[in-house]
């Protein structure tokens, strides 16, 4: 039984060496409204329980009452750091159910922007993770680079965060004039910036002390608890949806899956840094190979997928983001299910924190890279 009785706080506080500590929901290092109830022996975590749902909006219920194209913006508001990726999953799911032939140019532009979004998401992770551990400069530097990406989003979609980037069957607009130059300029500068972060952190004594050997999870445990994305690859399991089941234009791209060895916070940090480099590689290839042509398929006016159920997933910045749709043949889905990678990754928090100090809980929440908008839906 993992439930920790908060009502008995006073009793445990005075009668035993154990103490119950509420962390959050308004705690800056829980990255949103996450409440972690910690049971402590001195400064060591004995047990913990997560209280989530503060941001529950009933998104899956709302989707049952919306037309297929109307649902797309709700997906942006799940993981609002990676709205472009989320939106891609929804439109791809519907496209595959309808068997629409999306033009290759749309696929390539989608790939470029989704990878840019991955970099933006990882940069925000790096910024906040470093801030949690005490490195303030990285926050400013990483947000500076993220700003460049958000500017590209703003020029392309007209919005910085909740972009509503795609439409079923393609894109609302072709890439704007100067898109290639903007992206090229960004990826030309980016390796230098990444190297700067590495000088700040990778061999930093404090950083190493706070991350190496913290929150270790073995490969077998990581698979059993259902981790996906960088936390899984940090433990050395090579599972990446982009490779395993390519979507958009990933089948044409060459890239490596960076893997960690020890499954600790430091390895996950290295994996994410390397992922940003690989994303840059993918963007470069997509820009060079970018085909011409239309960006929209011919889409029926009323979208009615065939009767049946379908599961599709993409490699979001946080992990495998999945979408399970049950269609009854009408213009609204019968059921929409989001497989939230953050929720399932957060479940590993207890396993990773027990035995560590309270200060490490902050580092481990940071390394899991959670977004509460997606956990609570």
């Amino acid at each position, binding site marked *: 039984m993992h439930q920790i009785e908060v009502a008995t706080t006073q009793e445990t506080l005075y009668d035993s060496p154990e103490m119950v500590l509420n962390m959050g929901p308004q705690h800056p290092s829980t990255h949103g409204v996450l409440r972690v109830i910690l049971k402590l022996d001195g400064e060591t975590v004995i047990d913990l329980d997560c209280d989530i749902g503060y941001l529950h909006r009933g998104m*899956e219920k709302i989707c049952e009452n919306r037309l297929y194209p109307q649902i797309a913006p709700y997906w942006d508001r799940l993981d609002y750091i990676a709205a472009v990726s989320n939106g891609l999953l929804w439109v791809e799911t519907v496209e595959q159910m309808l068997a629409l032939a999306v033009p290759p140019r749309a696929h390539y532009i989608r790939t470029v922007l989704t990878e840019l979004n991955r970099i933006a998401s990882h940069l925000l992770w790096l910024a906040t993770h470093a801030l949690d551990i005490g490195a303030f400069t990285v926050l400013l530097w990483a947000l500076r680079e993220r700003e460049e990406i958000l500017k590209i989003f703003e020029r392309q979609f007209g919005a910085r965060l909740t972009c509503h980037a795609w439409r079923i069957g393609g894109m609302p607009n072709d890439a704007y004039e100067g898109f290639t130059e903007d992206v090229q300029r960004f990826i030309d500068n980016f390796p230098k910036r990444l190297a700067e972060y590495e000088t700040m952190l990778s061999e930093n004594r404090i950083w190493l002390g706070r991350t190496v050997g913290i929150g270790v999870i073995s490969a077998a445990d990581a*698979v059993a608890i259902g981790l996906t994305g960088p936390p899984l690859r940090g433990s050395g399991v090579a*599972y990446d949806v982009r490779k*395993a089941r390519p979507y958009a234009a990933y089948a044409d791209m060459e890239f490596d899956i960076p893997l960690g060895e020890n499954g600790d916070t430091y390895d996950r940090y290295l994996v994410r840094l390397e992922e940003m480099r690989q994303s840059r590689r993918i963007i470069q290839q997509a820009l060079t190979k970018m085909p011409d042509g239309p960006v929209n398929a011919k889409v029926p006016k009323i979208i009615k997928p065939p009767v049946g*159920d379908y*599961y599709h997933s993409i490699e979001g910045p946080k992990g495998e983001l999945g979408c399970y749709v049950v269609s009854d043949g009408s*213009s609204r889905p019968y*059921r929409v299910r989001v497989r939230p990678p953050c929720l399932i990754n957060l479940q590993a928090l207890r396993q990773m924190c027990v035995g560590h100090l309270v200060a490490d809980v902050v580092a481990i929440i940071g390394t899991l890279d959670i977004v509460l908008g997606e956990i609570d839906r």
Partner: protein
Amino acid sequence: MTDEPNKPDSPDAGEPPATPTQNAPPAAETPDERKARLIAEAKTRVAATKAAATAKGAATPTPAGTPKAPVKKKEEGPKPTDAAAHPLVKKLRAKFNEDIIEASEFLGQLSVRIATASIGAVCDFLKHGAETPFDLLCDVTCVHWPERADTPFEVVYNLYSIKANARVRLKVWTSEAEGVESVTGVWPTANWLEREVYDLFGVRFKNHPDLRRLLLPPDWQGHPLRKEYPLKPVENEWTRKHLPPFDAVQQEQLEQRRAYGLEILSHPDERRIREIFIAGREVMPLDRK
């Protein structure tokens, strides 16, 4: 009022004498004959336009009819096909025989429906399969079919095998009273996922180590993802107990907002939405099609 009906009358009365003089050729036509002739003319004209319209209509349906047929076909779309020949299904049938109720393939994805009692055994078998070990439990979710009275809940397990890059979907039909065996013993992932299904659908999982609500408050009543649950703010024990009362200033603010039609656009707290609901205003248009 009395003038108006008279006005049309007077030109009518004036016309009949005027027109006969113009169409004089058939000499000495009585007004009755003339009227009969005009009616006959009108009839032929109408018949001609009708014939032309039907001829056109007959011409157009053939081009319109040919695209119509494929459109209808598209609406039908692909249908789930029987997947009894799938190697994995064969393997499962060999081991579990009649517990594998139905296997279907839709858009290249395999779904297997399993007898409720044997879900634990089937999952354990699939996880430790030699060639395709389904080691990653991607998702556990549920679909509510209220028209199936005995087994309204369909619990869906999405499994993935990292080694074989294969997916399979398991389905179990159950009811609120019956519940499902928990698979937390096979995959620890299932813990929170099953808690969420319990929270939002009210399906009980037997032998679950910690079956509590996950997203909603522990003392919430009802299960929102059931089909009969309304898509609007609800008023229940929980809201009465936990949400703060509405004071006079807030009430006035709300009324001002309402006067501007702003209550939906910017709501600082949930209470205000509830007020709108109590006042009988629809918050979300449910019937827009």
